[in-house]
């Protein structure tokens, strides 16, 4: 009896202890949240990190839109490290794509068709950015935590198929006309599912066009696919995918932050001089004159440094504290159509869309109609010889500070770029390096890629 009592006491004591220390439930952070709470920060992340992060910041320099007011060798003269890509990769995978995956599965479980659609569209968009930066990337084995600590990389072609499939599925989900739509958690479209559908089609067109030179793909077929998609794509500037900012302290857009004095990022001479030489009326609307001289002056990359105030910065439209961040635009849709038509039907067919595209961009910048007309006249009409160059040059202006320009330059060679002085590589970079964190934690054969190596579709 006594023994049983002692045994019982010990058991009681131990179970009491177990209970006493069972206090490790996090009171600070929820274990689960509903869809709208995930969508809102993901949209901000896509704007801040995917379209304003290090990867895009770097390619803005490769495109000679931006430069660093710092000594060479530096990023703008193609000095690159794997480690500097850690943040962009990490943001895409752990902040954006993983949470989109969660959003999608939650919405599927709760049968919220429109959230499923939005998650799929944004997943395709983020995957597109990732694969265009690095080529082969992890996806089919990704997001499994401890289950799969070393996901192998999918071929870029597979990733592209996945993206198109996700966009197709999203369109189907939207077609179900579910009454539950996102509200103010959707900073982009405020739950306007028609707009989301137009975005899905426009993205489809964008990604079809990326493969015009891909091995095993036919340019004309890709153009047809793009044209078909664009019929349902964006129809006006109101359809633009953009993130607006209040501009209040601590709530500024990414390009405002990228062009803060501490970053030493300024505009490059190539971009500024192109606008000047073409007499582009958008110059004052896009570029701020240098503070010290009042002149429009970009930095010649690789030249002797001067004080940052000797150089131009982007205008408030692009880099003001309240500037919207333009992710996918109607202007781009028009340029895509122009390029597709050029491929299919020649320069004459492309001409009206080329004009419309420039006009749509100038409209946003409030350029007077006479200036628009004068400029178009000065630029001349498309010819067989100049059509692709003009379309891509103008698209690059329309997509200023957008990562898409880097894809376009790699695909078409326009806008024409020459290697900068004091470059550390013998060619302009054609990709981003795989991140150091990935090389350490998940070694894969693709990671040996050099800065000048091409991704699969780049030919």
């Amino acid at each position, binding site marked *: 009896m006594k023994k049983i009592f002692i045994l019982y006491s010990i058991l009681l004591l131990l179970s009491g202890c*177990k209970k006493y220390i069972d206090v490790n439930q996090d009171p600070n952070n929820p274990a689960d949240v509903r869809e709208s709470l995930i969508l*809102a920060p993901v949209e901000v992340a896509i704007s801040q990190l995917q379209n304003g992060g290090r990867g895009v910041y770097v390619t803005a320099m490769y495109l000679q839109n931006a430069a660093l007011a710092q000594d060479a060798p530096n990023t703008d003269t193609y000095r690159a490290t794997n480690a500097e890509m850690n943040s962009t990769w990490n943001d*895409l995978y752990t902040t954006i794509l993983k949470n989109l995956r969660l959003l999608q599965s939650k919405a599927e479980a709760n049968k919220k068709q429109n959230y499923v659609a939005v998650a799929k569209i944004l997943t395709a968009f983020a995957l597109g950015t990732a694969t265009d930066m690095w080529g082969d990337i992890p996806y089919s084995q990704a997001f499994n935590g401890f289950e*799969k600590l070393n996901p192998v990389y999918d071929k870029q072609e597979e990733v592209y198929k996945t993206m198109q499939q996700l966009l197709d599925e999203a369109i189907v989900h939207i077609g179900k006309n579910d009454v539950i739509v996102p509200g103010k958690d959707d900073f982009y479209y405020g739950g306007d599912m028609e707009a989301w559908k137009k975005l899905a089609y426009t993205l489809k067109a964008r990604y079809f066009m990326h493969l015009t030179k891909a091995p095993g793909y036919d340019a004309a077929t890709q153009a047809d696919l793009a044209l078909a998609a664009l019929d349902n794509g964006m129809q006006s500037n109101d359809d633009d995918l953009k993130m607006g900012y209040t501009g209040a302290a601590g709530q500024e857009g990414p390009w405002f932050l990228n062009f803060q004095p501490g970053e030493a990022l300024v505009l490059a001479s190539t971009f500024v001089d192109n606008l000047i030489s073409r007499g582009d009326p958008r110059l004052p609307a896009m570029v701020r004159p240098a503070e010290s001289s009042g002149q429009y002056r970009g930095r010649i990359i690789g030249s002797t440094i001067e004080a940052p105030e000797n150089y131009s910065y982007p205008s408030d439209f692009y880099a003001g504290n309240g500037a919207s961040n333009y992710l996918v635009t109607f202007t781009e849709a028009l340029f895509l159509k122009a390029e597709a038509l050029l491929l299919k039907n020649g320069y004459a067919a492309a001409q009206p869309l080329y004009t419309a595209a420039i006009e749509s961009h100038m409209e946003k910048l409030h350029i007077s109609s006479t200036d628009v007309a004068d400029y178009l006249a000065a630029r001349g009409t498309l010819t067989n010889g100049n059509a692709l160059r003009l379309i891509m040059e103008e698209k690059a202006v329309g997509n200023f500070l957008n990562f898409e320009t880097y894809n376009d330059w790699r695909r078409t060679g326009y806008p024409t770029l020459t290697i900068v002085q004091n470059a550390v590589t013998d060619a302009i970079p054609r990709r981003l390096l795989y991140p150091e964190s990935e090389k350490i934690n998940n070694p894969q054969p693709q990671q040996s890629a050099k800065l000048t190596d091409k991704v699969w579709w780049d030919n």
Partner: protein
Amino acid sequence: MRFIALLLLCACLQVHAKGYSQITLSETNAPLQKVFKKIQKQSGYGFLFSVQLLQQAGPVTVKVSNVSLQKALEECLKGKELDYEIQTQTVIIKKRTATAVNLRQAASPPPLPGDIQGHITDSTGNPVAGATVSVKGSNVTTQTNSSGEFLLKGISSNATLIISSIGFETKEVNVGGLTTVSVRLNTSAAALKDVVVTALGITREKRGLTYSTQEIKGAAILRTKEPNVLNALQGQVSGAQITSSSGAPGSSTRIIIRGPTSVLGDNEALIVVDGLPINNAETGALTSGAGSSRIIDIDPATIETVNILKGAAATALYGSSGARGVVIITTRSGGINRKPVISFSSSVSRDKGIFPKFQDKYAQGIDGEFQDGDIVKSSASWGPLMDTLKINGRPAPKYDPIKMFFQTGLATNNTVSLNGGNNNSGYYMSYSYFSQKGIVPSTYFKRNSLFVKYNSRITEKLTSTFQLTYTNSDQRREPEGATFGQPGPIFVVYNQPISWNPFPIYNTDGTQRVFRNGRNNPYWDLQNVYNKYNVNRFISVVTLNYQPAKWLTVSDRLGGDIFTEQDNYKESPSDALNTPGTLIDNNINFRQFNNDLIISANRQFSDFNINLILGNNIYSSYTQRHNIQGVGLAVNDFDNVSSAATITASNKHFLQRKVGFYAQANIDYKKFLVLSATGRYDGSSVLARDNAFYPYGSIGANFIFSELLSSNLSKAISFGKLRVSYASVGNDNVGVYSLQTPYLAATINNIQFPYQGQAGFLLTQTLGNPHLKNERLNEFEIGGEVKVFNNRIAIEGAWFSRTSVDGIIPGVSISSATGFSGTTVNSARISNKGFELLVTAAAVRSKDFNWNITANFTKIRNKVLSLYGNLTSLGRIVVGQPYNIFFGSRFRRTDKGEVLVDPDGFPVLDDVPGIIGDANPDWLAGLSNSFQYKRFTLSFFIDIKKGGDVYNSTELNDYFFGTAKSTENRAPIIYKGIGIDDNKPNKVQVSAQDLYRYYSDIDEPAIQDASFIKLRNVTLGYDLNKQLFRRSPFKSGAVTLTGKNLWIHAPHFTSGDPEGSTYGSSNENQGVLGYAYPSTRSFIISLKLDF
């Protein structure tokens, strides 16, 4: 009541014991009071009596020669209505009453003829229980009881008694016709009762310990005049590395014992005050630079001793939290029957900065051309020689940025304390106010500290101690470090061209006047940027001791450590940095409770002394962090977050609990062999449920070989022991809630949710590990201690080898493609092997002159054995390398180690970064000397660190700016190296400016060997002559002059004091120095008075 008051009033001055003394008296009709004074002088015993009572008793005639105290007292009180009682050093005279009959006699009937009654005490007058008393030449033997008393019956009146006891010299006493004897035993040389406080506050004799500890006395701590007790220990403890982070008033200090064992977790020793573990987190660092280690809230003046438990065997009983070593602080207390003493001490310190050296020849500019900072905003001091520079035709004035900016610091410290006690209780109270004005204007640290301790004997078997510390700490400081694009005045001052006048601060249009863009004017920073904290802290401990039998003690100790901390950071809107202004209010609400219930049994079985301890520990720690951040400040000089355009807030709670059961057994065989074993079973809330409980323990043996030495040898070697121990200690070194993978309120770059009225959550990037178990530290230790020349020289050494296994790595990086950038794993292995040596010597011991030397030496080698999976590095932790190496960009070298130089004359940068330095010192040593000549004392302490690199970003950046002293020689440089194209020694020269500016972009040139020899402190003291005080209320006093950091020899370091870590005491910041708040050289005068 009145009687007690009188007792107190008339209590005699207590004098130190003079050892066992025989008393001789020859008085005729003398007042009792006078007689007692004589006895007191001869015996060293104090007297407690009522004057009234003595007067009533009348005078006495007494004549005794060489009798015991008891005998003398009996003679004095013969025929009087008085009785006496002896209680630890004090004789209490009281009225003889029926109830208060002489306790000695009440205990046993009056001795029969031939019976001997006796009382055995130790040298301090405490009874010696269990002593063996035998009659020489017979079998008669007995043992003393718990009061040290014995009774032997039927003994011949001329018998000789042999009295022996463990740890005492055996004594022979001739009975000589006496019926009562009182014998005082001397502690045996081999067993000088060096009692130290070990784990869980258990006091043990040092001789019996199977592991290494080191005790530092409170006096030695006070001598350093450091407000932070850890700084006071710097360089004095073998096996420990104690590093201050910066010179800012109140800044943090790191203590690592026997090397770091955790990759990214806490590596600092546990701090325990009177048995209560207290919080020593680094807090208050809302901005760049070090915070404060919260041990700063402990007033060093209240400390009696600090004992450092080093190895795992020593700390196994503390278990989880003690695996990294334990600093046991024992506070002062009053004593029973102690006369009240009021002490007052005051000190004033003048502090001067120890600055980097800067070039003071060249003006602002580039390529030798002058640039006027008011016209051309330029960060460079590569301009023309100041001597030749003319502005508007006049010689340009030169400004010394350092002299203009820094001031002489001033610190005052005032302490008043009161201690004493009556017959059943003792008290100690102290209040101190420390106030330090830093050498950077506007910075300060202030501390008000109140300490009260009351111990009382509730009954014969039950004693209690209650203590309470209240501290208010208040700090203001400026951001430190290389704060590119952020506020921080030191960074700007160190780069300020000597041709530029920083005043006025403002331009006529109200904007800041700066010499370059992207930096604030440093004087503007002082007024507009600050980091403050205010801490209110209570530490309270209640201890109850119940002793139902002389061999059994049950004690319970309940303690609480509670503080609230208010942190504020303010940064006004700056036109120079184009920042909107920020205010942060961060409140920390902390409370930690700890209870230990300990049952201790001690029994002697023939030759074995067995000590058993059983215990239970319950621990709970709760933190709340309430953070409000406002950006975009609209109202000038209004430091309230309500003026902010965007306000974000967070509120977090953290709760951790632990339970532990432990046992310890010490078996002492014939006082030369000790076997010790501990076991503990812990449960921690932070581990996975299935792995929450884990056992561990230690085992050790101790062989006191000097007990077996022949008498000849033991004359030379008075004490010698060898010990060996092995311990395996479990540890839950991970933060709370690491098992779960929750959603977090989203923060995307600058944008914090809720944003535009919309809440947002994203799944954390850190994958929770639901299987987390404890890590483990395995340690083998061997050591010894030898005392020679009659204990004049003591040498103590230890060698240890410790390996942490299953090491918890919080935030180890994993492939982001998993969806997470990091997780927590149980896989790190780090080894530390080391050697510690401590030598103390009484070089000279004489009446007027004493010279004591203490030297310590520490050498620790550590190595990271593995991290996780394929992972070979985590920041500064690299597999196969010592802990905390420096990794960075470096020069390319030939196989022989020569730097390759390109055809333009510049050293070639290696494509891949690599290991460029190691922050771990080769060895550490300390040497302290103290001399005492009559009333003068002189002591000085030399601290030596050999090896250990620092990353000196002050020097590196100042290469670029052209302000570093090394840039003063601006002749073209031929870089020593091998041409990369021709394999020949380089002959191409480059301009100094180009080379230094090229350097500044590379990590390798920033690495400097931080070896140093420091004269850390020198103290000259004078004990004021008692004669001086004859007509004053004072009893004693002392005046002390102290110098700190009077001399620093650091041959390879170029920026002042090589010690420290600008960014605080955490792991990753170790050895990174740059634009830190300079440490100081101080002159201190102090006065101490006792009344």
